[in-house]
């Protein structure tokens, strides 16, 4: 038996050498296998690294959500929108049921939503600060750090803010004058604004401040603030979650600035990338980016993007200028004059000169900027420790206000630069529920307080919604944009309740669990158990009537999770085409070979070879061809992958950080694509040779007798 197989293999090998067409077939099979193993291996590596990214950053291994939801869950959004999910209100029961399933480590409740926040322009912020100071001085309450100040200290601070405002007005006036000097842009200057600027420039206007501070502020808010148009809207996408559980389950998460939200408390962790990209002073951000680029070997002189950054830095100095009062302006002018050895007196010109960075002076200018400029300005629009008031609109049109303290920023290690992983900030569940429109116990208490204070009208409106959401009526997820509004619509009592009580309050696990959520991440002890646990969850859900739908991280990540599969399908199609062509050629070649070998096959039959041997002989021939060249293809593909793994493939851009689960993708050679390739090769060769092989078995031994002329 063995020697017969050896004989057939020997015949196969030797026959292969005879026919040059086998070289073409071999080349096709080699190419097909190489492409399959190489790209298949890369896709597998990509899929694994993406799994690490998705599982480790937001999704967990499995996501559960209400089966009655209108949309499928798409954690990273689908076509730019968040999914419309039906709220889950029986989390403790669900958690208990799912935690019992073997292999489940933790269930982390979640809810994804978003709000549009505007941090206000610089004049808004200054006016707000001034208003708080005036209120504190008048004993009308406010933040503790203000109310604890003495009257003298408050006076001094008010004076400083007035000087700052006057400086801003001076800058605005300068802008308007320059605009007027130019015929074209002169038309764009609103005479109404010009008149207002003219008025607030004068000392008399400010002399009246002490007599009617609030009236003065109102004028500034209504007439001057709108002139400054550099307000930035930031869309803040957040996931409301049990922050403790989240931090424990997603162990790649790390706090970058500030601290974690204290256990059980309300609070937010902003994505560090959002904080850097969207909340940092643009000039500083651009300098950071140039620094990174230079470290990566790019040069300003030839790089269009870097040139643009420098140009923008030089022209867009107003962000900085407007933030400084007269005193600070003078200080900075002096400092910059010294540093640059310049006699220039205008701050914007000095800044422009400072920021005229080249490859030679960049490091020095960068250090100067961070040493002289940033300490005097607000580097981030939102700082650690700030309290953001997030105002969200529910679907029914009512407004929800929630104050959330920003405790810090966070990132997932390896994914620091990934916009996808960094697109979502974290919020505590209680704040999330408030914004979402779910009536929490302390919200109800607050409503009572408001009722007492402000009368029935407002309350009835709030109550209407409270009842709508509070009594088990259909609760719908909201992804409506909200606005951070420092002047909350709710009166001072409600505001104080939030700031002083709610922010410090520590919630019990029961309070955290007992409320609405939209979805939950299920963390497993072993990622390979995903399919089994999904089935178990579905079974438990059906048994206990929990109405849940469980999906893998891949499905939960929406379109994103499908990308690899799309590539995989494309690869399969391409490889299928290559192998299909190979099959046709093999079929033809083997048909020809069989016809040519009629006499030899007839002779073998005459001598005593059974049909099975002839079938095996022909089949083995193409299998040997396939395995030989396919094997070379596999080895080459694995070799290339292995070579790539030595250095890793650098992520070409921020998006790829997510797919690569870090700055480099280290491809690994796995048996998966190799085994599949082998199966494909065997199938292709056997299937394409089957007809010629069968034909060969039909050759009569009589053919041996016929002379071969």
């Amino acid at each position, binding site marked *: 038996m063995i020697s017969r197989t050896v004989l057939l293999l*020997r015949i196969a090998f*030797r026959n292969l050498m005879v026919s040059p067409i086998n070289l073409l077939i071999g080349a096709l099979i080699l190419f097909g296998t190489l492409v399959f193993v190489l790209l298949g291996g890369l896709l597998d590596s990509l899929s694994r690294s993406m799994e690490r990214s998705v599982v480790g950053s937001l999704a967990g291994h499995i996501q559960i959500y209400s089966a009655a939801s209108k949309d499928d869950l798409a954690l990273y959004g689908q076509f730019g929108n968040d999914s419309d999910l039906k709220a889950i209100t029986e989390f403790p029961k669900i958690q208990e049921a799912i935690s019992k399933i073997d292999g489940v480590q933790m269930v982390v409740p979640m809810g994804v939503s978003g709000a549009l926040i505007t941090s206000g322009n610089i004049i808004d912020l200054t006016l707000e600060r001034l208003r708080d100071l005036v209120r504190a001085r008048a004993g009308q309450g406010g933040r503790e750090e203000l109310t604890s100040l003495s009257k003298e200290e408050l006076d001094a601070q008010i004076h400083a803010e007035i000087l700052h405002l006057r400086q801003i007005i001076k800058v605005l006036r300068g802008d308007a004058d320059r605009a007027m000097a130019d015929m074209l842009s002169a038309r764009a200057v609103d005479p109404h604004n010009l008149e207002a600027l003219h008025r607030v420039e004068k000392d008399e206007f400010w002399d009246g401040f002490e007599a009617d501070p609030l009236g003065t502020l109102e004028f500034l808010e209504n007439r001057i603030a709108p002139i400054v148009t550099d307000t930035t809207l930031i869309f803040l996408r957040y996931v409301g979650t049990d922050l403790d559980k989240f931090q424990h389950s997603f162990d790649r998460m790390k706090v970058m600035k500030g601290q974690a939200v204290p256990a059980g408390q309300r609070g937010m962790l902003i994505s560090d990338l959002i904080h850097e990209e969207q909340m940092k002073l643009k000039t500083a951000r651009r300098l950071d980016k140039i620094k990174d680029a230079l470290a990566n070997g790019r040069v300003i002189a030839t790089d269009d993007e870097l040139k643009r950054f420098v140009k923008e830095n030089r022209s867009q100095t107003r962000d900085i200028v407007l933030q400084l009062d007269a005193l600070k302006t003078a200080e900075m002018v002096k400092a910059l004059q010294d540093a640059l050895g310049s006699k220039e007196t205008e701050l914007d010109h000095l800044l422009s000169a400072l920021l005229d960075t080249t490859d030679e002076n960049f490091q020095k200018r960068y250090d100067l900027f961070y040493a002289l400029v940033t300490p005097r300005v607000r580097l981030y629009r939102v700082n650690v420790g700030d309290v953001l008031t997030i105002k969200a609109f529910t679907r029914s049109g009512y407004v929800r206000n929630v104050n959330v303290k920003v405790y810090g920023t966070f990132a997932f290690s390896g994914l620091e630069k990934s916009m996808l992983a960094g697109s979502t900030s974290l919020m505590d569940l209680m704040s999330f529920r408030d914004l979402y429109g779910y009536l929490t116990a302390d919200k109800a208490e607050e409503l009572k307080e408001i009722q007492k204070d402000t009368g029935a009208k407002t309350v009835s409106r709030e109550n209407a919604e409270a009842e709508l959401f509070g009594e088990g009526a259909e609760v719908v997820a909201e992804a409506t944009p909200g606005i951070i509004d420092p002047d909350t619509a709710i009166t001072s009592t409600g505001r104080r309740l939030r700031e002083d009580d709610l922010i410090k309050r520590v919630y019990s696990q029961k309070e955290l669990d007992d409320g609405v959520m939209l979805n939950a991440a299920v963390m497993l002890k072993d990622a390979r158990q995903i399919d089994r646990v999904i089935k178990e969850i579905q079974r438990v859900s059906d048994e206990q009537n929990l109405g849940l739908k469980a999906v893998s991280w891949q499905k939960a990540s929406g379109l994103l999770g499908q990308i690899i599969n799309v590539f995989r399908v494309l690869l399969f199609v391409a490889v299928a085409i290559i192998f299909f062509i190979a099959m046709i050629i093999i079929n033809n070649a083997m048909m020809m070979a069989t016809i040519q070998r009629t006499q030899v096959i007839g002779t073998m039959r005459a*001598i005593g*070879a*059974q049909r099975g*041997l002839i079938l095996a002989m022909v089949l083995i021939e193409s299998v040997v061809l396939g395995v030989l060249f396919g094997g070379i293809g596999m080895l080459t593909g694995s070799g290339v992958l292995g070579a790539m793994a030595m250095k890793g493939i650098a992520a070409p851009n921020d998006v790829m950080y997510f797919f690569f689960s870090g700055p480099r993708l280290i491809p690994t050679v796995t048996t998966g694509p190799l085994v599949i390739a082998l199966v494909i090769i065997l199938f292709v060769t056997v299937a394409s040779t089957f007809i010629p092989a069968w034909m060969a078995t039909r050759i009569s031994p*009589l053919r041996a*007798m016929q002379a071969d002329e």
Partner: protein
Amino acid sequence: MSNGIVTIQDVEKEYSLGATVVKALRGVSLTVEKGEFISIAGPSGSGKTTLLNLIGCVDTATRGDVVVAGKNTAQLSERQLTDLRLNTIGFIFQSFNLVSVLSVYQNVEFPLLLQDKLSSGERKKRVESLLEQVGLNTHMKHRPNELSGGQRQRVAIARALVTDPLIVLADEPTANLDSQTGQAILDLMKSLNQQKGTTFIFSTHDHKVMRYANAVVRLADGKILGRESPELAVAHAVGMDAPAAPVQAAS
């Protein structure tokens, strides 16, 4: 019925060539005894090859009985016929029919591998001894295309005899060889016949070849004209062939 190694009784063989039916054999009876060195002679189209095919179990009769080594071939399946060929019959072909991708040694070993009865050591011994007998023990590693026609036919003889068959069938074994080489091949066949007692049945239309046989069966138009001594057969054959000779020369 005789108890010869091959017994053929009233055999007819018909082929259909399109719409017409060709009668290749029309009532042939023949008995071949063990150890005979018998020639089947006759002109082209006389039915020599058909008769050989029936004896060689590569074809079956339309009517009549063909009994080879005690087995009636009409009653055997395709598989059994193949086994019968493998274990009982050795074939020598006019155009040698060696497997070109295999070496001399491997060609000779081939039937033993099909039989799968011997160990590789026994096979080696057997193959080498046969190649020595045919005088090719120095060419074992050669490929058939590296050999002369006579050498190839000797390889084919070794292959036919390697399984120690009862019968060796040779279809015009010398037709593709020059007369000297042909004689050498026939000498070899004859000596093997005498040494081993293997029955040889070979077809030919060459009267020089017929002389080697101990009996000649003359065929014409699908019928046996007679079973006679080589001398008589040659005389008949010369008589038969004589008128044809000028025609062949003219063509």
